[in-house]
């Protein structure tokens, strides 16, 4: 279990090193491998969030799919907010509501909360076990189940497949 965690950190750091350097000389790569290895060994005992990653074809596919869904929602949300800002009467109906999530993994919950923050008129104010408190620019419903269906579900059903 621990090996997987360290390997995940190692791979992420190595890919960041390659992106930073943008060149593939052999000595650059050797330094990158050594550095990533050392950092992942030192930090690996503390950073356990990568344990939840699954390395499989399915999860990679769903990650890419998630990225597309998310970018589409991002654009949609911005158009929505832009419409509200440009309307002279400022049509807003704000409030803080509760929703639920079934995700258990920390990583998945962080991605979920970040996605909610970036999508149509919603902002995660607090997270407490499986309850997410969300500030909506346009409150649809105060009932917890309806709100969950409206806001959380579209991301959650993909994230469940990646992080289980």
């Amino acid at each position, binding site marked *: 279990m621990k090996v997987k965690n360290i390997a995940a*950190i190692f791979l*992420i*750091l190595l890919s*960041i*090193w390659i992106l*930073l*350097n943008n060149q593939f*000389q052999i*000595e*650059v790569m050797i*330094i990158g491998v050594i*550095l*990533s290895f050392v*950092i*992942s060994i030192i*930090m690996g005992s*503390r*950073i*356990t*969030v990568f344990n939840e990653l699954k390395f499989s074809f399915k999860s990679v596919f769903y990650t890419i799919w998630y990225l597309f869904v998310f970018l589409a929602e991002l654009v949609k949300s911005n158009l929505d907010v832009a419409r509200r800002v440009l309307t002279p009467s400022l049509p807003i109906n704000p409030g803080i509501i509760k929703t639920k999530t079934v995700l258990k993994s*920390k*990583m998945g*919950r*962080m991605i979920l*909360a*970040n996605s909610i923050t970036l999508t149509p008129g919603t902002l*995660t104010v*607090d*997270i407490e076990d499986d309850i997410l408190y969300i500030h909506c620019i346009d409150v649809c419903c105060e009932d917890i189940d309806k709100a969950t269906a409206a806001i959380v579900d579209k991301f959650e059903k993909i994230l469940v497949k990646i992080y289980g």
Partner: protein
Amino acid sequence: MVKNSLIFIVLIGFAVLLADLFVGFNGNTDLNTLANHYAVSGPEEVGSANLVTAVVITYRGVDTLGEVTILFLAAAIVSFLLKVEAGASLNRKLRSTSEILDTASRILVPVIFLFGIYVFINGHLSPGGGFQGGAIIASGLVLMLLAQPAKEVGHKLITLVESISGISFVLIGVAGVLFAAGFLDNKLLSLGKFGTIFSAGVIPIIYIFVGLKVGAELSGIITNLHENQNEA
């Protein structure tokens, strides 16, 4: 009233002084002699693509040594003034961190450390160097402390890293006297191929030590302040 006019006089004095210095300054169109020498012969003499690094480490290396010493003194005085009793770890009421911040910090801290190390290893090729890299590493430590305040940071480790890198910095300088042209001379190692990561003689090694030293000093200041926050 008298005091206010006094302040105005001081301000006007400064304004006149500065204006007098810069009146008629209309921008440079060419480098002066010294800068021209550094720019033209710097790449061959030192082998560093980043001329600022060449000036900081080689041409004005002793300045850097003094600068690091000043920073060391500042950090030492801060830790002396903020001395806390041993074993008095965190005992104060804090609001718990948000879970999202906690997870994000766990992902970001290794990335920040890697970026800091990238900055000072590539100090002779791209902008940055020991000072910036050290500051970035200290910032990573700050993010760690903000997200997990109960974390213990080893003072011994910080002191150890700091003294080892300081001593190594000076020893490399002395080795320059013994085996090359002078103190902190970078031709201790061969200059290598210009523009690659193993080039510019000992500059990358010196910058690694400077980076570790600056990072350790700034981290020392930060951890001292962090542990001094307990009530009364």
